[in-house]
């Protein structure tokens, strides 16, 4: 009898943990979508992507604390800033190293990563920053479960953004140009697609997607200068799991990573959250190098 009670309690904790992980996974998928656009289209390895997320979170913090904008609404301000920032990074650095060995591209983005980490440390000091409560604060209860409204809203907004990006890529002319360039940049340029403009567009879009995820993360999380690498590695893990060219695969991989992290924190040890992610990552690389959902080449 006693044992049965314990099992049902464990079940409850597990379902709660699954929910939390799944909600987080949607935001992770949105972060990885930006990286997937950049890597899929121009094969550039952006090590600074996690730091883009961190930078967006700081911009959101700024907008929120100076103008009093609610965290959920800050992406309306930070989205264009990050888009311009991404374009500048593309024309200033990436464009010059396109023809070089891939280690050179990694070196330049690592330089950018260090730069962003240092500049945020300079501007906002090393202590964590957080915004006051957003208007989507609060919890909903159903059954025995509690769901933070801010996480639920963030996950829903992430899903909407992911779907609209999928629509943009398949239905609009610039989106189709991006997909064509990622398939075969030579053939696309023969068809009249300016591949450098497309690259710049993809890089700007990829970076500005981090603005949305950064604003969403700020509704329930604090930001500090050292969190960049974790987000970067996390999104690479999701990308490895999903493979290239599949947005629904990306979403499922985001959910797997989010749920894996959440279960590890609940049932094993809070320190083990990254361990589980990286072990999944290494195993997938070994067993399915093209990812679980990657298209065949």
């Amino acid at each position, binding site marked *: 009898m006693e044992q049965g009670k314990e099992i049902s309690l464990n079940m409850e904790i597990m379902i709660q943990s699954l929910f939390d992980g799944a909600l987080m996974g949607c935001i992770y998928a949105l972060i990885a979508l930006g990286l997937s656009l950049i890597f899929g289209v121009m094969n550039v390895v952006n090590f600074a992507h996690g730091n883009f997320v961190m930078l967006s979170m700081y911009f959101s913090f700024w907008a929120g604390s100076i103008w009093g904008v609610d965290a959920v609404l800050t992406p309306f301000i930070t989205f264009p800033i990050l888009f311009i920032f991404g374009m500048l990074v593309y024309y200033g650095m990436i464009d010059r190293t396109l023809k070089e060995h891939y280690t050179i591209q990694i070196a330049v983005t690592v330089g950018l990563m260090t730069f962003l980490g240092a500049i945020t*440390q*300079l501007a906002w000091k090393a202590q964590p920053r957080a915004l006051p409560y957003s208007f989507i604060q609060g919890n909903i209860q159903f059954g025995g479960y509690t769901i933070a409204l801010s996480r639920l809203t963030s996950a829903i907004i992430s899903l909407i953004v992911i779907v609209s990006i999928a629509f943009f890529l398949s239905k609009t002319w610039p989106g189709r140009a991006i997909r064509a360039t990622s398939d075969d940049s030579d053939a696309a340029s023969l068809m009249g697609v300016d591949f450098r403009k497309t690259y710049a567009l993809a890089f700007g879009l990829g970076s500005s997607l981090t603005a949305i995820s950064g604003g969403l993360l700020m509704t329930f999380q604090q930001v500090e200068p050292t969190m960049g690498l974790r987000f970067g590695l996390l999104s690479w893990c999701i990308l490895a799991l999903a493979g290239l060219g599949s947005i629904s695969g990306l979403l499922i991989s985001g959910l797997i990573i989010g749920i894996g992290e959440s279960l590890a924190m609940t049932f094993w*040890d809070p320190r083990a959250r990254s361990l589980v992610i990286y072990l999944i990552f290494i195993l997938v690389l070994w067993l399915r190098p093209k990812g679980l959902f990657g298209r065949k080449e």
Partner: protein
Amino acid sequence: MKRKRSHNLNNLLLFLVIALFVPLIFGSNQYNILLITTVLIYGVMATSWNIIGGLAGQLDLASFAYLGLGAFTSSTLFIRFNLTPWIGMILGGLVAVAFALFIGFPLFRFRIRGVWYALTTTALVEVLKVVFNMWEEVGGPVERYLPYFSGSIKYMRFGSYIPYYYLILGMLVIALLVNSRIAHSKLGFYLKALGEDETAAEVLGVNARACKLRALVYYAFLIGVTGAIYSNIYGYVHPSFFNGPESIKVAILGIVGGRGITYGPLLAALLLVGAQEFLRASLGGEVSGLYLVIYSVILILVVLFKPRGIATFFQDRNKKPAKQEVKKKNVV
């Protein structure tokens, strides 16, 4: 070829003579000696990295994993069994090699290369950090201090940083010699071929897996031994020795110095880490993070304007380096 080697040898000798006298100049200030030793440690690591990263073209980002394994092996044996680090450092190197083989076999077996190799090795450093954090018998979240016997040469516990400086300098010479021996051996030519185009090299009969594993073993051993000395310099071990960002930095030094050029990574370490430590020592107290801003700007500019490496500044001006055409599609 002969002349070029002797020219390099002269440069190396000049560097060594200067390096030998450094403690005489700065010896009065232990802090300066520690800073210079730190710069040299990065020199050793980047030079060792050159074997796997520069020659074999594998972007390995796990250098601090091997450093940490060497440090933990030697220190744990020292703390628990009172084994002198002089033996412990060899064992530390061997443990690092064992781990490298354990990781390298499947990695090369499943043909993981390019970015994915780089990301796997970054992930490994983080995995080891968490594992040692949770493994209370050996690591745990609290620093473990080495027993202190003042001035005990037998236990590698010196009262001053100067002997450690010479130890690291010795490691640096060994790393440079190993590097140039490999670069001029059959293995070196195989590795260079692999680094250029792996598939083509395999078609020509190069056993890619065996060659890369051998490169990995040399690299891991050198850094593992250095790790044992590293923990003795600082006098403690801690899971934070498994440092992801710093491992990336080592690889960057190797790339910025000039991939495959024996003394390139050392040059990059001396200039970049030297500049960083200098900036940190002179600016660090007032504005935290400013030294990193300057350092990263220097790094970005060097990569953008000297993509073939700092060492190419000093190479023969008449001899244009062969233009390397790398198709993007081959990368991943």
